[in-house]
């Protein structure tokens, strides 16, 4: 063996040993471990990065400003899934037992990964929090005790979009005979709203046409020729993600379809989508579960405490307040409040997934508490229960004016009288297929 090879071997061995030591020594027993499944690489990174930054910044702020939660410092570790289901499962398995009490909850930011983890989280007793994505029928907490879909589901989003169209047309009665197209990412995520839209179509007499777009959605010319030149629908709803969104908006412009007749779900309402589409995006609408902007006391603290001291997650504070960043903040607040509730009950020390599930089952984020956090108006209050793992499900409609997402409606609540029985029916079907005995909620 020559000297160069020997040096290389020693280097590799040292690096390996250092990694192992680092992995075992980095989590102190009195800190709360938080595992974060994110995607900062891969085709969906432009959406994944701001979300991950918002999620991380909130916990960093709690550490820096408040000394953690109830005096318990927080330690966040990210694992990059690249929006890939098998990598997502691998990340979950890698993180679930880390820290003194394991991962207290998981938010995979992917409906595909959510589906893959549904059984595992029950076995591992780790709550799965899917804010604005995932499986809608998981709102039924009797069948899905470890899944939480606060604040809204895709079924709720579909209902709110139709509600908005009905408002524009002069009421639900005017929907009869209208043509509505759904352009969707051909994945578990994109297919989620179909059942709701079909139900609504049958109820109100509009004609629904489906246009699946295969991953990643680089090329949609044929789809938009069909929509813009052949079908000529009254409205287009979009359930897209990543490059698919900007491409759809541009192709809509290319066939002359009016963008103010396009309504995207929140994952199709991100700054990277509309900025990439440029002028073509003017007037395009999207649902949002949260307000956009950085004019909240919390955001000012984030900039002052973190970014002014070089401790922010992102390289610059330019994304603080963007639509997806705020969604990351929203998810982090939900988790932090669940951790706080669990600590209040079980003692101010790191808590387990089972204890956090207990907290989420009686989760209450009131207007007063939202004000204390410094985000009044960022999102609506949420109340969960053993049976209801969704909450009130509101979202608003916003419109891109070239610079920002301008709210054009107040928060709209979905029609739970219609949705709740649908959730329960679908959840019961799932329970039957999986042999699950639904728990009893008192």
């Amino acid at each position, binding site marked *: 063996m020559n000297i160069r090879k020997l040096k290389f071997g020693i280097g590799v061995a040292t690096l390996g040993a250092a990694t192992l030591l680092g992995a075992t020594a980095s989590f102190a027993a009195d800190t709360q471990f938080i595992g974060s499944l994110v995607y*900062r*690489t*891969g*085709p969906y*990174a*432009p959406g994944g*990065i701001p979300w991950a930054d918002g999620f991380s910044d909130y916990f960093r702020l709690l550490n820096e400003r408040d000394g953690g939660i109830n005096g318990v410092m927080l330690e966040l570790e990210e694992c990059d899934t690249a929006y890939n289901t098998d990598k997502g499962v691998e990340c979950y398995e890698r993180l679930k037992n880390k820290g003194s009490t394991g991962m207290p909850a998981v938010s995979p930011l992917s409906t595909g990964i959510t589906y893959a983890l549904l059984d595992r989280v029950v076995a591992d007793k780790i709550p799965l929090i899917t804010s604005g994505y995932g499986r809608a029928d998981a709102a039924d907490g009797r069948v899905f005790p470890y899944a939480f879909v606060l604040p809204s589901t895709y079924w709720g989003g579909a209902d709110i979009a139709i509600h908005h169209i009905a408002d524009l047309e002069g009421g639900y009665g005017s929907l009869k005979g209208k043509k509505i197209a759904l352009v969707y990412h*051909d994945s578990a995520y994109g297919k989620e709203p179909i059942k709701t839209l079909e139900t609504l179509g049958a109820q109100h007499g509009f004609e629904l046409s*489906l*246009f*699946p*777009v*295969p991953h*990643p959605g*680089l*090329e949609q*010319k*044929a*789809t938009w*020729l*069909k929509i813009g*030149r*052949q079908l000529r629908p009254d409205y287009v709803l979009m359930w897209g993600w*990543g*490059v698919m969104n*900007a*491409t759809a908006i*541009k192709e809509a*412009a*290319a*066939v*002359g379809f009016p963008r103010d007749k396009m309504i995207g779900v929140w994952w199709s309402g991100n700054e*990277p989508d509309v*900025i*990439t589409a*440029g*002028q*073509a995006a003017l007037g395009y609408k999207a649902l949002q579960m949260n307000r956009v902007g950085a004019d909240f006391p919390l955001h000012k603290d984030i900039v002052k405490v973190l970014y002014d001291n070089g401790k922010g997650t992102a*390289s610059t504070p330019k994304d603080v307040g963007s639509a997806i960043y705020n969604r990351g903040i929203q998810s982090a607040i939900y988790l932090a409040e669940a951790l706080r509730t669990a600590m209040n009950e079980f003692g101010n020390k790191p808590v387990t997934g089972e204890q956090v599930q207990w907290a989420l089952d009686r989760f209450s984020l009131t207007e007063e508490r939202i004000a204390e956090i410094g985000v009044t108006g960022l999102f609506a209050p949420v109340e969960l229960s053993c049976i209801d793992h969704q909450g009130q499900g509101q979202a608003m409609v916003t419109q891109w004016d070239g610079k920002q997402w301008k709210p054009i409606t107040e928060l709209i609540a979905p029609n739970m009288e219609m949705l709740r029985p649908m959730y329960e029916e679908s959840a019961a079907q799932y329970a039957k297929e999986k042999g699950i005995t639904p728990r009893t909620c008192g």
Partner: protein
Amino acid sequence: MHIERDVFYIILASLALMVAIPWAAGMLSEDIFFEWPFFFEVAIGGLLAGVMYSLVALGFVLIFKASGVFNFAQGAMVLFSALTLVGLQEKGLPIWLAILATLAIMALLAYLIERLVLRPLVNQEHIILFMATIGITYFLDGFGQTLWGSEVKILDIGFSNQPGFYFGGKILINDFDLIAALIAGVLVVSLALFFQYTRIGRALRAVADDNQAALSVGIPLKHIWVIVWTVAGVVALVAGIMWGSKLGVQFSLALIALKALPVLILGGFTSVPGAIVGGLIIGAGEKLAEVFIAPLIGGGIEDWFAYMLALAFLVFRPQGLFGEKIIERV
């Protein structure tokens, strides 16, 4: 360019089918909307999209012609070149200087690939070189994003994306697609002239025919490989600019290689004209199928239909439409 008789007949037959199947579908099914202006609109849109696929496929062809290596990294080169261009622009360089600097970086990359990856693997099986290009892919994907970030970057080259109406206002064609097709066409003609009439072009063709024989008459294989990877880098940059201005410069650009694969299967891995004709057939074929066949089977067939179409052509021409016939004496 000499076109074999059976290739001519295959192209003719496929054109006839591209017209006949949509027309028949329109006649037989109420779900299919068929009107001649709309048919031509879809067909022209498909042809223009096909030119964009050809642009990516060209990069593969160049390297395969010169070295027999299927360069898995071509998509990553498209992404890397576009990221570098926009990254340099963001650093304050004017567009022309950023393009020149990116070209220089792509040439440097070609040199490094030859020096560090290809040269140590000379005389190895082609599959080894192919595996090496997979390594290059992952390196470039990661390195590009580490260097320039994973956020979407805007590349505005000032072309309009508005619909243009032609033929008495009956047919809609997107202006951007027309300009992109024109630029791709100029690039293809330039490459064809470069291969046919320059000394380096002739050397490249000699290496492609038989690299041992080329070596024996004094053609420096190492230099040729650097040149051909550089030219593939230039093609990648042009593809990156056109696709990047359409989609934004982001990781997804690397995935457009998937759109080029059926073009290569159909056109042949060794032919520049094959990449063009293949791109046109795939582009028009997949769009016509998506519009006039997909509604009968649920939609969303565009991507896999392109591969199926390419495989159907292989039944008649295993080497691709313009590929070189493989004759092995045993």
